[in-house]
């Protein structure tokens, strides 16, 4: 009967590069939660319920995209869908994220093997280029050649299959699907925004790179109506502490609204750092904090080439508990004052 039914989902893409890049940005856990809707695929990862990353594969990324999602009567075993009537019907399952990423890199794998062999022979290359470093123009990096990548998911419980064809070589990968955990999204109250700042993703990346060498434990983010407007401070580093402020630049912050006088929260540094891959590929970032202290980072990734569209990556972070927060804040304040005296 399965064979007669059209598959739940089938899509074909000519390049896996962007698909790979988007997924890699949220690569901080083993399992990825997949949700297929008629508009695209949503991947979400979750770290100890305090950090969440979401990537979307919009259907525009594919050359063809068809879904046959069972309607309400079929989705009895998905009570969540019934609860949220307005949300479009969807199919959910989990996949192993590292495996999925590896699969999407298969294009040009033959290339890579050839390069490896070459570097073995040619000592200059092997000593001067790190062996496994991909060539910027290899098919593997570009994620394409004259091949195609087709994804399909036949029916619930079936493996998620990815077929990559390239130059007469056809690779079929069947990835085991797992029962979805239905992790709830970290609640973010869009009605109760503490602040909203849009800036270049690169500045955020630079700021983290600036603070990272001291290997701090926590990162405090402060948005205030007066200078320094936005300030990132590292707390608890072994080699000293640091702070970045975005006070001076004219074009630094595109949008800047702070509702109260000041919004300040502390997050685990390593978690925010886990989003740095997203900062690398994105052009802009929208930072928002809600009344509860949850931080949302939304990255806008521009798709080069023919489509010229945009993709979004969402991250949400739960802050350290308030009590902690106040303690560290008071400590920071001391330091800030000290710095002002120095300057």
């Amino acid at each position: 009967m399965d064979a007669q039914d059209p598959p739940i989902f089938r899509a074909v893409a000519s390049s896996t590069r962007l698909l790979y890049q988007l997924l890699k940005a949220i690569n901080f856990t083993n399992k990825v939660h997949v949700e297929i809707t008629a508009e695209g695929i949503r991947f979400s990862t979750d770290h100890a319920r305090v950090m969440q990353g979401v990537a979307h594969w919009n259907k525009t990324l594919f050359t063809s995209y068809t879904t046959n999602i069972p309607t309400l009567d079929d989705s009895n075993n998905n009570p969540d869908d019934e609860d949220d009537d307005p949300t479009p019907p969807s199919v959910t399952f989990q996949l192993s994220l590292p495996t999925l990423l590896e699969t999407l890199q298969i294009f040009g794998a033959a290339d890579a093997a050839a390069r490896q062999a070459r570097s073995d022979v040619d000592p200059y290359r092997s000593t001067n280029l790190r062996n496994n470093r991909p060539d910027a123009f290899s098919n593997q990096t570009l994620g394409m050649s004259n091949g195609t990548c087709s994804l399909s998911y036949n029916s619930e419980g079936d493996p998620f299959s990815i077929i990559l064809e390239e130059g007469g070589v056809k690779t079929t990968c069947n990835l085991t699907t797992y029962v979805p955990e239905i992790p709830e999204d970290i609640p973010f109250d869009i009605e109760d925004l503490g602040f909203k700042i849009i800036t270049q993703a690169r500045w955020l990346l630079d700021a983290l790179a600036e603070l990272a060498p001291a290997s701090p434990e926590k990162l405090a983010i402060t948005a205030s109506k007066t200078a320094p407007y936005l300030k990132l401070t590292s707390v608890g580093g072994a080699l000293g502490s640091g702070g970045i402020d975005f006070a001076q630049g004219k074009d630094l912050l595109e949008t800047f609204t702070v509702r109260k006088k000041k919004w300040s929260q502390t997050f685990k540094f390593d978690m925010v750092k886990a989003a740095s891959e997203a900062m690398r590929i994105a052009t802009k970032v929208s930072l928002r904090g809600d009344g509860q202290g949850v931080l949302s980072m939304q990255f806008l990734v521009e798709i080069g080439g023919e489509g010229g569209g945009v993709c979004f990556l969402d991250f949400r972070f739960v802050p350290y508990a308030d009590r902690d927060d106040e303690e560290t804040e008071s400590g920071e304040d001391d330091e800030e004052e000290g710095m002002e005296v120095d300057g």
Partner: protein
Amino acid sequence: MVVLNFTLSEDGVAVLHDALACMFKFSDEVCLEARKEKLTLTTLNISKSAYVCYSFAANRFFSRYKFEGSPQYREKFSCQLYIKSLLAIFRTRQGGGETAPGRDASIERCDVAIDDGVGKKSRLVARISFRNGITASHSLPYEVKAPTHAKFNEHDAGNHWAISSKTLRQLMDHFGPGIELLDINTDEESNLVNFTCFTEKVQKRGGVNSETVLKKPLHTNIAVEMDEFDNVQVEDKLHIIISVKDFRAILQHAQITSGELATRYSNPGRPMKLYYKADGIKCEFILMTVGEKDAKEQRHKTPRPNASVKGPRPELDAASHRASSLSTSARQQAPPEPTPRTVAQAPQQPQNPTPARPRHPPAFDLRPPQLPPPGTAQSEDSMFMGPAPEDEADEDHQWAPVNPDEDEEEEENARLEWNSTSDPNPSTLRISSYLQKSSTGTDNTPPDRQTSGLDPTQRLSQVRGFGLFAD
């Protein structure tokens, strides 16, 4: 209270980074010493064999420099910091290829302040302003500590030369891999300065006497004409030896910093100074050179005669050669009379001058006896144990055919010997000829035995019981 306050330009940050990166090759920590007219960074490596000192002139290197001092630190202030954390701060940031104002993420200026005093957190605060308007401030804890300075007596150091650091850096390309030491010496006759690099790293070759061989028996000599140098004044044939690792680190920095590198030194075992200057900075390195005495001591301690670091080194070959054949040649050159060792051991042996056949001492009865080879029986008992050399000869006579294995070994030994010592008369070492001699006459056998290097580790009488010989 702010003790020190200075501002660096983007280039200043780069220069400071280069200096710190060079220091990092010597040590993990740096001592910063601030005075009114200059800022000094010094470090001493962990083995206290190398000292690095950079002085930055207050009025030239910095865009702004102010040593405020405090009641505690009126003249100077010094503290110690981790180089690693400084390196992370004072590094050049890439502009990201965007040159538009407000987009460029490169450094505009870097303000550094040291804040110290009673009731204050001791922090070095570096505030970096980027061209795009972002400001990063880092505060580093430090330890207030007086620096250790190495002393160098300029008057004693009569030898000196200077050379373009670029030229010297290029010479370094020819240094072999895995080398450790660099010998700098001059040859006035041929008007050359030699840079000889080598290593004394040895590896165990295994074996019983734990023989060691050179790991990298490669000696690279780079001869440079004296014309390349300025101000050469060096005692002829003076060999000064320094560590290549330090030398490399210095040259790397010298090349990017300055045009000319100069050096002063006196004798082996005394410090050597290398120094160069650039706009506003003075770099000074004091390296301990390997002394002759050190080398000799080393030679005594470790069984490697090739550790001789002084002198042109043709002895390397000869010496190592001697090392490998030490045990055998010693025996060969021994005088014909019985060596003291034989004599000393003799009393311990079960003496039995009579040719009756009490062949096994009861202690050796463990193994089944072997059949004696015909015709050798008469003198079996006295083998290797009699104090009289004639007996020994007889013993050998008996012994040789019995144990073909040992025979082979013997021959191998012999071969080794004449190969290594280039004995002019190898045929005398052959067991066969030796046996002939011993059978014909007993008088000349002792010297023969010595020559052949037959020095048994065990008396034959002791092994007799092991079943190698027949009753």
